[in-house]
C-alpha cells in the first residue's frame, strides 16, 4: 500500500519502525533489567552502590507523587530551550553576516574556532565570579555553548559555497541582499542544520553540568544531590531520564530535521 497524505506516511513509517525494532528492544530491555538485578543482588550494600531496578522504579513513583520529578524535568528543559534558542537566534545571523565578505570571514574564522574550543564548562568559573551561583550563570553558560558552535558552523558553511554560484547570481544582476537570500542562506543550510544539532548537544551537556556546579534545581542538580545525600536510586533515575530525554530530542527532532535539510538543500553540485 502506498501511503498518500503526510499523516498516513508518518504512521506508516512509524509502523515500519515498530516492526523491526520493537522486538529487539523488548528483549534488550528485559536482558538489561535481569542483568542489573543480578549484579545488584550479588554486591554488598546495593542501596549505596547499585540499587535494583525495582528500587529505582519505586523511587520514581515516590518522586512523581511528590511532584518533584516533573518540576525538575521542566526546569531543565526550560533552561535548555531558552538558552539554546537565544544562542541559535543570535548565532545564525552572526555567522551569515560575517560570511558575507570573504576577508571578514577569513578574519573571524580562527577566533570563532578558538571560542568554540573553549567549552562552556570551562568558562563556568569565570561566570560564577561575575554573577554568582544564579540562574543567570547557568543561562549564560548555555547561551555561550550553543552560540559558538552554530556561528562557527554557519561561517564555515558560507565559506564553502563555491564562488561561481555567487558570481553567477551577481552576473544575473542580483543585489547583495538577493545573493544572501538565494545563494548564501540556502547554501549554508546543511551546515546550519548540523550546527544546530551540535549546538543543542553541547548545550544539553552544559545544562546538566551547570546545574550540578551552580546548584540550581533541575535534573543535573537532582543526580548531584543524590550523590551527596546517599540516594543512589535518584542518581540512576536521573541518568535514565537524561538519557531518554536526549534520545527523544535527538532522534525524533534534531536528526530528522538535519536529514531533511540536507536532503532538501544539501545536494548542491560542486
Amino acid at each position, binding site marked *: 500500500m502506498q501511503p498518500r497524505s503526510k499523516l498516513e506516511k508518518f504512521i506508516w513509517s512509524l509502523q515500519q519502525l515498530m516492526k523491526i525494532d520493537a522486538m529487539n528492544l523488548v528483549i534488550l530491555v528485559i536482558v538489561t533489567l535481569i542483568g542489573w538485578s543480578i549484579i545488584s543482588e550479588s554486591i554488598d550494600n546495593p542501596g549505596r552502590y547499585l540499587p535494583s531496578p525495582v528500587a529505582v522504579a519505586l523511587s520514581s513513583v515516590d518522586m512523581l507523587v511528590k511532584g518533584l520529578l516533573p518540576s525538575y524535568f521542566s526546569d531543565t528543559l526550560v533552561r535548555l530551550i531558552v538558552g539554546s534558542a537565544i544562542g541559535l537566534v543570535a548565532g545564525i545571523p552572526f555567522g551569515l553576516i560575517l560570511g558575507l565578505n570573504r576577508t571578514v570571514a*577569513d*578574519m573571524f574564522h580562527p577566533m570563532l574556532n578558538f571560542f568554540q574550543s573553549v567549552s562552556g*564548562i*570551562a568558562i563556568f568559573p*569565570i561566570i560564577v565570579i561575575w554573577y554568582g551561583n544564579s540562574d543567570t550563570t547557568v543561562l549564560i553558560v548555555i547561551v555561550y555553548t550553543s552560540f559558538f558552535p552554530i556561528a562557527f558552523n554557519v561561517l564555515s558553511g558560507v565559506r564553502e559555497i563555491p564562488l561561481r554560484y555567487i558570481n553567477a547570481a551577481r552576473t544575473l544582476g542580483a543585489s547583495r541582499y538577493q545573493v544572501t537570500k538565494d545563494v548564501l542562506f540556502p547554501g549554508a543550510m546543511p551546515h546550519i542544520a548540523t550546527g544546530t544539532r551540535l549546538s543543542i548537544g553541547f548545550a544539553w551537556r552544559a545544562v546538566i553540568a551547570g546545574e550540578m*556546579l551552580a546548584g540550581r534545581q533541575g535534573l543535573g542538580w537532582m543526580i548531584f544531590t543524590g*550523590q551527596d545525600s546517599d540516594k543512589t536510586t535518584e*542518581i540512576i533515575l536521573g541518568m535514565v531520564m537524561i538519557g531518554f530525554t536526549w534520545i527523544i530530542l535527538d532522534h525524533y527532532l534534531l536528526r530528522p530535521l538535519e536529514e531533511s535539510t540536507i536532503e532538501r538543500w544539501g545536494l548542491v553540485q560542486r
Partner: protein
Amino acid sequence: MKLLSQFSISLQRRFGRQRLRKTLLGSVPFLVLISIWHANTIFGWLPPVFVPTIGEVWDAIFFLQEDCPGFMPLIKLDNDCMMTTHVLSSLGRVILAAVVGLPAGIALGILAGMSRPISKFLEPVGVFANSISGIAWIPLAIVWFGVGWVTTLFIMLNTIFWLMFFNSMLGVRSIAKVYEDSVLTMGGSRWDVIRQVYLPGAMPSIITGMRMSMGFGWRALIAAEMIGGDSGLGFMIFTSAAEFKIEEVFLGVIIMALIFMATDRYLLVPLEKWTVERWGLVWKPA
C-alpha cells in the same frame, strides 16, 4: 621601501600567499580582543576582581610554579608545582583514556558490527549509552570510586569508548555486503575480511568518531575534574574561582583552549583529511 617589499615577497614565497593572508587576517580579532582587554585595565570599565590584567595572568604562571623545587618533582607531579602538575595530569588522563578507550571502542565496535543481527540488537545500547555518557555519570562515578583521578578517568573513558564503539559499529554496518562476499569467494579468511574490508571500510566513520570523542571527552573531563577530581586543569580553575583568583581562572581557560586547539588542528584534522583522501572514496554499489 624596496627592502620592505623584498622582505614581504620573500615571506610570501616562504609561507605561501594564501596561508600568510589567512594567518595575518585571523590574528586581527585576537589582537583587537587583547587591546580591548588591555584598555579595560587602563580605563577600569570592569573592576580587576572581574577581569584581571594581562600582566597578572602572566604572573600567575610563575606564582603557581613558585614553590616548585626543581625538574624531577615537576615530572613526578609534585603538589608544589601547581601549574605543571595540573596541566600534565589533565593531559595524562586524556592520553591514557585515548590509548585505552579508542582501540577498545574500535575493536569491540568492529566485532559488534560484524554480525548484522547482533549490531542491530546493540544499536539501541549504543544510542542510549551515548545519550547519557559523560557528565551524567559523574555522581554515580563519585559514589563508586570516590573523588579522585579514577572518577575523572572513568568519565573520560566512558565518553570515548561509547562514541567509538557506536561509530565503528555503524561504519562496519554501512559497508556493502558485496565486498565481504567477494573476499570470501576469493578464498579469504575471516581475518582477511576484517583487515581488508571492515577496517578500511569503516575508517572514515572511525576517524570522525575519534574527532568527536576527543571533543566530547575533553569537555566531559573538564567538568569531571571540577566536580569529582582532585587535580587537573578543571580542578585548578574551579578551586581558583572559589578563592576569587580570577587571573588563575583566565590562565587555566586559555591553556585549555590552546591544548584543545593544538590537538584538534595538528593531530585530528590532518588525520581525518588523510583518511578521507586515502579511504573515503569507496565506491558504493546502489
